[in-house]
């Protein structure tokens, strides 16, 4: 009963908007919804206002800024210019990797400048996202399957997976920086002498390993919550019917855990797309580990408006990925949040 109160009557307000009077009971219901709506707006107002101030205002102001020229020395005249409207020039500059030329107009950005890094940063961001989320999903699934079993010390394992999650990312980055130091334990353990943060692929793998270590537990816990919603009878029935372990996994576990899994993957994907602290501290963005977020931060000091354009591009990319997830891959976040709440009782 208690669980039904929340999620089920959600569709009701739609009929409240176009009141259909069917007897005194219906009218009463409408009034109730109306007064609840009034209550709700009072209760929600502080949150909505707070989020509007800290999120909606910056978005709008970033978009406005992104259409302005950056103030600075005009390369053609050597005089200080105040900016002014730029149209979509900032966006074009990033996407085409164009920088303003000393003789006026634009040329391809020289290698090494921030302007030359847009596509490599995008590629790096997506590479990190795909690899870390894939590894985290597989590892997290495995960890969740183990934690779902009954064995002595299960609560110890469940507690232990929270440790990496509880450590701040900045500390995680420093810790792995030490582990990956030239004389560090990683090299000694595997008897290698890799300059982990000194060249491209080791640096990339250092970021990936640290990120997977830090965030797999979160994935595992979300999947575990999904696994625990599957009633044991379903497995027993399948066993009686002679389904093998692999069949049971493929025909029961996967489809039934899919909603929780999709939400977990969505959250992690959006998180990975905005990855900042870990590569920023671990590698400083060197050796092609600059993500879009790092590029924005590096740009902030050189020109606000170009940075605003880049952050808007980042925002659009993340929004598109979220849209694709929700629209085509069936990650229904809003309903799922109700469902997990319901199943957990």
């Amino acid at each position: 009963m208690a669980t039904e109160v929340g999620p089920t009557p959600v569709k009701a307000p739609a009929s409240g908007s176009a009141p259909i009077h069917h007897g005194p009971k219906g009218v009463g219901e409408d009034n109730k919804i109306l007064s609840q709506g009034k209550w709700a707006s009072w209760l929600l107002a502080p949150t909505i206002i707070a989020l509007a101030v800290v999120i909606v205002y910056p978005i709008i102001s970033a978009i406005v800024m992104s259409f302005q020229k950056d103030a600075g020395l005009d390369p053609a005249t050597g005089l200080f210019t105040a900016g002014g409207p730029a149209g979509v020039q900032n966006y074009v500059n990033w996407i085409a990797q164009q920088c303003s030329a000393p003789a006026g107009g634009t040329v391809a950005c020289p290698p090494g400048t921030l302007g030359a890094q847009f596509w490599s940063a995008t590629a790096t961001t997506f590479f990190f996202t795909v690899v870390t989320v894939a590894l985290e999903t597989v590892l997290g699934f495995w960890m969740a399957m183990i934690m779902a079993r009954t064995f002595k010390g299960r609560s110890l394992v469940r507690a232990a997976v929270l440790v990496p999650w509880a450590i701040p990312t900045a500390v995680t980055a420093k810790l792995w920086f030490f582990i990956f130091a030239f004389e560090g334990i990683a090299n000694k353990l595997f008897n290698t002498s890799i300059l982990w943060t000194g060249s491209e692929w080791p640096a990339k793998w250092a970021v990936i390993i640290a990120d997977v270590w830090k965030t797999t537990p979160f994935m595992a816990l979300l999947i575990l919550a999904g696994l625990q919603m599957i009633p044991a009878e379903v497995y027993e029935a399948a066993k009686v019917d002679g389904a093998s372990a692999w069949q049971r996994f493929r025909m029961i576990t996967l489809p039934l855990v899919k909603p929780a899994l999709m939400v977990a993957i969505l959250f992690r994907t959006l998180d990975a797309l905005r990855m900042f602290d870990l590569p920023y501290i671990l590698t400083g963005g060197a050796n092609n580990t600059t993500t879009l977020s790092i590029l924005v931060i590096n740009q902030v000091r050189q020109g606000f408006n170009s940075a605003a354009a880049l952050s808007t591009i980042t925002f659009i990319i993340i929004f598109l990925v979220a849209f694709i997830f929700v629209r085509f891959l069936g990650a229904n976040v809003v309903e799922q949040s109700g469902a997990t709440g319901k199943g957990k009782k």
Partner: protein
Amino acid sequence: MTAATSSATSLRAEQDRGRRKAQNKEKWAQGRTYISAAVILIWCLAPAYWMVVTAFRDVGFTYDTSILPSHVTLDNFNTAFDTSFGNRFGQALLNSVFIGGVVTVVSLIIGVFAAYALARLNFRFKYMVLGFILGASMFPGVALITPLFQLFTNIGWMGTYQALIIPNISFVLPLTVYTMTSFFREMPWELEESARVDGCTQGQAFRKVIMPLAAPAIFTTAILAFISSWNEFLIASQLSSDATQPVTVAIANFAGAQPNQIPYTAIMAAGTIVTIPLVILVLVFQRKIVAGLTAGAVK
């Protein structure tokens, strides 16, 4: 008769063999579970353990590989708090506690109201509001940096506490609302109604029946909110000053006596100090935190 007996014995032998086979299979499965559990334990704990061990090593043995610290010292903890190399770790700890505390309290106060409305009331645009709050939690932090940087520069807020607290609320508040909403949905609200039948006013019923029931959920949400705020780095790294920087920034910028030498043992000591309270908190309230994490399905 003998034939029947012998067939019965062979049947029993067959059953025995089957049972033993099943038992062996079970044992093997159980053994594999333990091996897997051990692998998970090592994978999760070994790096964290390495940080703690290194924190206790003498600087001269920074790269020692012994499992237990061979030259135990507490010097690193002193070095972590030493301000002579420009580190302000002690101050940063206080900053983090202060910022995290304010963010948690503010987010909880306004978030609990919103969560109550979302879980208990029917109104139009409910899904839109939920979607908006969820969208807010997925918003990339860097998109806030540029406008906030300019705004705070203009109004002279750069490096102030409020410049760190207000953006932080935008990350923590959606999480608070989300977690509290799913907790509220599970609350036995019939109790509130029966209290009202027994003559309580709505306010009394809420205070005396629902609040005590909600207290553990609010506490859990507070822990999640505090951890999330404690972890924040992006905004703080750009908008804080030396005086207001939180621990995450202090640790990232930790400097040693020599500019080209990284004071690993001191950093690991600082990391240990920053982490231990959180880990204790998390382990003590483990069950609740897992419930909170999975209920809201939000990081």
